[in-house]
């Protein structure tokens, strides 16, 4: 664990991206292949399977440190990270163990089937043998969620330096279904053929939102516009007569959308389509809520298939007849894609149309009709653009419609985690229903650290009741919330559910009495 802990320490002690990359390169140059592979896995969100529950960890940390459980929990609320809290309360180590990272992971994995007493003995042994940083990392290996300031992008850069290969190739190699048990460092990053794994997707190309005036994009003739749909971005693969569906979050969701998977097996051999998995019925898109019923389901019932039908709204073609065509122009790729859609004639494969427009003004007019069409606005893409990897500026832009807004009163506040620990950052908001406040949304992003600090001071002085990390506060502060959509919902007391609610600004000018009413919200329902 020493090398890995040193890497962690170096990354902790700088705020500069280049320093972090250098630390990672150094680590990759020194560590053995199995530690390298696990490091890559951890920073690409492939965490080891959980073998010990956090409630055991809490109990044992309390026992070993002599800190009573209530005091441990209070500490946890302040620290905001369980693995860290444990590492901070434990007494200093009394022995040493020089195992490296992958050995410790194997050690933890080995605890899956054993009795509780045995697990406890093993965890105590580790806690007694590891120093502060090592313990924190050991606990993180158990609790998962390895966010320690190294993004996948940053790691890709470091691997690219370490192996002297382009970042695009590294990003592509790291995609897909692999785990440290299914591959090795050599195979994953060095073997000649990338696609020994037929399910391997390409890195997604992601767009930023338009920043300046739309006219600044230049000649409209160089651009295409497509409606931006509110579904799940996905990549559909057909290779060797087998189909795979990947979500943008790199999850394999083939079984969740069997109608698309079935369709995909009929695609020409060696086809990869980038598109939107979208609730869709009788030629028009459904709201995101319909799709939500399908998300996370491994088994899909016939009833659900009927209730929430989906299609693949095809945007782009990345692989054609087994050939990677990402370097061809969007125009060429779209021609080939149109041909495939035309040839297959399948109800679950729909081509995302290019919207014709003469100039930016007409497109701006058309954008105003987005909501009634069930779209979020436009995607603008340069006709000559290749398909790049990751979020890049220049060739592709999102041009979304302005969000809905509403003024709401803060009723509950909860402490944040990680970087925002000890600040109140997660809030529940309410609007008036007659003379009572009814909660309707939670939001936690959109304010500056300075504002969070101010609100934290308010919460501390105006708490009515505490429920663990949550405090109910005097209904005084008003915030303008922005959100993308609104649906009726039986699950919520207010009767509505919002899509992507976030805090737009603090309305210091408004007293609670001037916040919006439930009727105002309901007036926005489609």
């Amino acid at each position, binding site marked *: 664990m020493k090398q890995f802990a040193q890497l962690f320490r170096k990354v902790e002690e700088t705020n500069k991206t280049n320093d972090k990359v250098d630390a990672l390169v150094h680590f990759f140059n020194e560590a053995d292949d199995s530690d390298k592979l696990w490091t890559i896995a951890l920073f690409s969100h492939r965490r080891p399977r959980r073998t010990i529950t956090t409630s055991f960890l809490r109990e044992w940390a309390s026992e070993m440190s002599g*800190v009573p459980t209530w005091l441990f929990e209070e500490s946890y609320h302040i620290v905001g990270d369980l693995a860290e809290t444990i590492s901070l309360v434990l007494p200093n180590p009394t022995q040493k163990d020089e195992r490296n990272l992958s050995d410790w992971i194997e050690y933890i994995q080995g605890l899956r089937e054993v009795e509780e007493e045995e697990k406890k003995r093993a965890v105590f042994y580790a806690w007694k043998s590891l120093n502060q940083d090592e313990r924190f990392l050991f606990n993180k290996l158990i609790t998962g969620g390895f966010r320690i300031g190294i993004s996948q992008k940053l790691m890709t850069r470091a691997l690219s330096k370490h192996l002297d290969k382009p970042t695009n190739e590294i990003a592509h190699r790291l995609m897909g279904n692999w785990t440290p048990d299914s591959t090795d460092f050599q195979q994953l990053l060095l073997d000649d053929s990338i696609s020994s794994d037929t399910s391997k997707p390409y890195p997604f190309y992601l767009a930023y939102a338009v920043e300046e005036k739309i006219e600044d994009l230049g000649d409209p003739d160089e651009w295409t516009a497509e409606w931006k749909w509110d579904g799940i971005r996905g990549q559909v693969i057909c290779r060797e007569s087998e189909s795979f569906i990947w979500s943008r979050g790199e999850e394999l969701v083939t079984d969740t959308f069997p109608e698309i998977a079935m369709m995909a097996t009929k695609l020409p051999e060696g086809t990869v389509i980038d598109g939107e998995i979208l609730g869709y019925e009788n030629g028009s898109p459904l709201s995101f809520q319909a799709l939500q019923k399908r998300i996370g389901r491994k088994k899909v019932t016939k009833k659900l298939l009927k209730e929430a039908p989906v299609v693949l709204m095809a945007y782009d073609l990345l692989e054609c007849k087994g050939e990677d065509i990402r370097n061809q122009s969007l125009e060429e790729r779209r021609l080939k894609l149109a041909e495939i859609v035309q040839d297959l004639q399948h109800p679950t494969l729909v081509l995302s149309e290019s919207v014709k427009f003469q100039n930016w003004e007409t497109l701006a007019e058309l954008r105003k009709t987005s909501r009634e069409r069930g779209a979020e606005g436009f995607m603008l893409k340069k006709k000559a653009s290749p398909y790049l990897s990751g979020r890049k500026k220049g060739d592709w832009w999102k041009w979304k419609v302005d969000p809905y807004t509403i003024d709401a009163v803060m009723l509950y506040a909860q402490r944040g985690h990680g970087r925002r620990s000890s600040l109140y950052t997660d809030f529940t908001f309410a609007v008036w229903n007659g003379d009572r406040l009814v909660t309707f949304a939670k939001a936690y992003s959109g304010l500056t650290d300075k504002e969070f600090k101010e609100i934290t001071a308010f919460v501390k002085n105006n708490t009515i009741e505490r429920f663990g990390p949550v405090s109910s506060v005097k209904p005084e502060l008003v915030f303008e919330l922005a959100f993308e959509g609104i649906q009726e919902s039986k699950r919520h007391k207010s009767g509505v559910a919002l899509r992507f609610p976030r805090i737009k600004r603090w309305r210091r000018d408004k007293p609670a009495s001037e916040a919006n009413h439930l009727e105002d919200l309901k007036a926005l329902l489609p």
Partner: protein
Amino acid sequence: MKKDDRGRTSRQARRYQDMKRLLSFDGKGIYCAQADVHIDPWKPVAKAFITHGHSDHARWGMGSYVCTNASVSILKHRLGKVKIHGIAYGEAMMVNGVEFTFFPAGHVIGSAQIRVSYKGETWVVSGDYKLSNDGISEAFEPVKCHTFITESTFGLPVYRWDPQEQIYDRMNTWWKKNQAEGKVSIITAYSLGKAQRIIQNLDHSVGKIFTHGAIEATNRALRASGVPLLDTTHATANLDYKEYAGGLVIATSSAVNSNWTKKFKDFRLGIASGWMQVRGARRRRAADIGFVLSDHADWNELNQAIALTEASEIYVTHGFSEIFSQHLIEQGYDAKVVKTAFEGEQLDSTEEEKVA
């Protein structure tokens, strides 16, 4: 509002009950009615006894001040022309039959715990304190009493400090590394206390140590009163930035948030504070490195200090007061939370600006 049979609200009644005790909290500070003396008052009063020179304990606007001899120059520097009487550690002062004695609190130069005794009853107001000897503040002395008033800034078991020598080693190592890369190292610290502690304990053979104006002004006051501080250079506007290369600058946290740091071009930023113990606090500040160095007692020291007083009654002030007093109750103490205007160690203090 509910009133008792004498027509007092419950709050007034409680305050009346409290007033009969040797010390009470009267909304202006810690009050001794028998002597008509306030300790560390936060509202204007006639007679103020001051534990130490930090601005949340020594405020402007009191009729007269009593503090340790070592604190006199600090109070003068911070408060300007006020009526101050200095007293030696251990020297007793009688006020209307009440005996006041100052004992070292180990927090910063001149800091004291104030023992108050009257007719066999003894209280100690500890202000802020730490047990480890930082080599420049007068070392903490435990004082026996019946009732102890304690801070609780770091009153959670996650706050336990490594030995300070290790922290200085880390600072030196970091400084040398930055120096090798041609960078300036900046460490933020309180202008009174931690700044001098760092100055005295870093390895001056590595390079030059510079100070921000607020810190230099405090240093000047301390040197003038005979504190043997090691040499530092005031980081003034007319110094060329090349002069700073490889050097270490000690600055206040408010200076770092301003344009002031621009003159250093390529620099790395460290924060010296007990709050740096928790990763989230450090990451939020966007500093490069956190040094867990505090002038306040950690969890173990708080518990140890309280045990050493042999007091049975504990008043817990600023910090994690509710949690810490709950812990003390479980340990068998008669512990109560009391609200004051003291702040303890602040991560985002703005107090420094006023004295810059």
